C-alpha cells in the first residue's frame, strides 16, 4: 500500500465515522418515536426516511445537490448565515454518507427498541424516572446490542457509499475522494492493480464490520 492509499483509507474512515456520529442522535430519536408511539404522519415520516434505501443513490444525490447548492434553500442559508459551502467539499461527503446511512440505522435501532420490554420502562417510570431518564437508563442500555449493530451497519454503509457522494461532493482526489470513488476512478483509467488493491481493502473492512454487526444483533445465547 502506498502512502496515498493509506491517506485515502484514513479519509474514508474519518468521513464515515463523522457522518455516523452526526446521524446517530437524530436516528436514535426517530427510531424511538417510531418504535414507541403512534402519531399522525408516522407512516409519512417512515416513508421519507426509507427513501434513500429505495431511490437510486444518484437521484438522492441530485436532491441533495438541489438543496445544498447556493441556489438551494439550505445551501443559501448555510452560505449566507455561516459562510459554509457544502457542495464539492468534504462537508458534502459527510452529508451524503449520513443521509444514505440514516435509514439503515433507524431500522436497526427501531427493531432494537421494539425488543425492549415496555414493562421495564413502565416500572422505571413508576419509580419516578421521567421519560429522558427512562430512555437513557433503561431503553438504550437494554437495546444496546441492537443499537451498536445499527451503528456498525450505518458505518459500513457509509464506507461504501458512491452515488449520492459523487453527485454532491464530486470525485476530487485529495479533497472529496473516498475509497469507493477511487476504485471507480482507477477502473475508468484502466489502473487495474490499483483498483484491485483498493478493492481488497474494501472487502476486508466490509467483512469485519458486517460480521461484527451480525454477531452483535444475535442474542448472546445464540452466538457460536
Amino acid at each position, binding site marked *: 500500500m502506498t502512502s496515498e492509499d493509506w491517506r485515502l483509507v484514513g479519509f474514508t474512515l474519518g468521513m464515515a465515522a463523522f457522518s455516523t456520529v452526526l446521524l446517530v442522535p437524530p436516528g436514535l430519536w426517530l427510531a424511538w418515536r417510531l418504535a414507541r408511539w403512534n402519531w399522525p404522519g408516522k407512516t409519512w415520516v417512515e416513508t421519507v426516511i426509507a427513501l434513500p434505501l429505495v431511490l437510486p443513490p444518484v437521484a438522492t444525490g441530485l436532491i441533495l445537490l438541489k438543496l445544498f447548492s447556493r441556489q438551494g434553500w439550505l445551501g443559501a442559508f448555510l452560505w449566507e448565515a455561516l459562510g459554509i459551502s457544502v457542495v464539492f467539499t468534504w462537508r458534502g461527503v459527510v452529508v451524503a454518507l449520513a443521509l444514505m446511512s440514516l435509514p439503515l440505522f433507524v431500522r436497526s435501532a427501531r427493531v432494537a427498541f421494539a425488543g425492549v420490554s415496555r414493562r421495564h420502562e413502565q416500572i*422505571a417510570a*413508576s*419509580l*419516578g424516572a421521567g421519560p429522558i431518564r427512562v430512555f437513557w437508563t433503561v431503553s438504550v442500555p437494554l437495546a444496546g446490542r441492537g443499537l451498536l449493530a445499527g451503528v456498525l451497519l450505518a458505518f459500513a454503509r457509509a464506507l461504501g457509499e458512491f452515488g449520492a457522494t459523487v453527485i454532491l461532493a464530486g470525485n476530487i482526489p485529495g479533497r472529496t475522494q473516498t475509497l469507493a470513488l477511487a476504485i471507480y476512478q482507477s477502473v475508468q483509467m484502466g489502473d487495474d492493480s490499483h483498483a484491485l488493491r483498493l478493492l481488497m481493502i474494501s472487502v476486508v473492512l466490509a467483512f469485519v464490520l458486517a460480521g461484527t454487526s451480525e454477531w452483535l444483533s444475535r442474542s448472546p445465547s445464540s452466538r457460536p
Partner: protein
Amino acid sequence: MAFPEPVLPSMSLHLQKLRARFPEFSLELDVLLDRPVTGLFGPSGAGKTTLLEIIAGIRRPDSARIEFHGRLLSDTETGFFLPSPLRQIGYAPQDAVLFPHLNVRQNLLYGWHSRGGRGLPSLWDETVEAVELTGLVGRPLAGLSGGERQRVALARAVLSSARLWLLDEPLASLDHPVRRRLLDRLRGWVDRLGVTVIYVSHDPAEMVAWCDDVLVLKAGRTVARGIPDFIAAHPQDKSRLHSVPHDRL
C-alpha cells in the same frame, strides 16, 4: 377490636367511579382507602394487579377520579392524568421486573436516584439488612434466586422515597419465618414514615396480621370490606389466623 395508631397520620387514597373494561373482566370500584395498610385479597384474575397499575399510572381506566391525600392523580372527566413518574409511588410488581443491566445496588437505588436522591437514603442500611441482601449488593442480577429478586424489588420500592407503596405479592417466594420478619420491619417503617401501603397477598393470615383494612375483590368488584368481615369469610383459615397477634382478632 383495637388497631395500633400510627405515629404519623396516614394518607387516604380515594378511587371514585373507577371503571376499566378488559377482555377478561371489568373493574368497577368506588372506595376510600384511609388506613395506613390496605390489603387487596381475591382470586387470580380479580383485578388486584390491574388496580395497582391504574393507581401507578401504568394503565389508564375508562373512567375514574383518583386522589391521593388530596392530590389529584387522574380525572377522566376533565382529562387530567398525572404521569406515572410524578405520582410519588413505589411499586413492587409481582414479577419483580428488575433492570437486568444494573447490579443489585443500582437496582435498589434506581427510584431513589430518579427522585433526585444523592448518595444513600437514610433507610439504606436497615432496609438492605432487613431484606437480607447485605452480601449481594455488589452482585449482578444473574444468579439471584426468585426470592432474592422479589426482595430486591420490595427494597427498591421502599427506598424510592415514595409516599404510596404498591406491593404486589412481594413476599410470595419467601418462606414463612422470613415473611413474618419482613412484615414486622415493613410495619415499623410504615408507622414511622407515615406512608400508605396497598398490599396484595393470597395469604389470609397475612391480611389479618399486617393490614389495617382489607378489600376483597372478585371479578373486578368489591365483595367484602374490612378485617371483621374478612375473618368471618375465612373460617377455614381459622387455625392459621390464630397465629396472628391477639389484638387483631
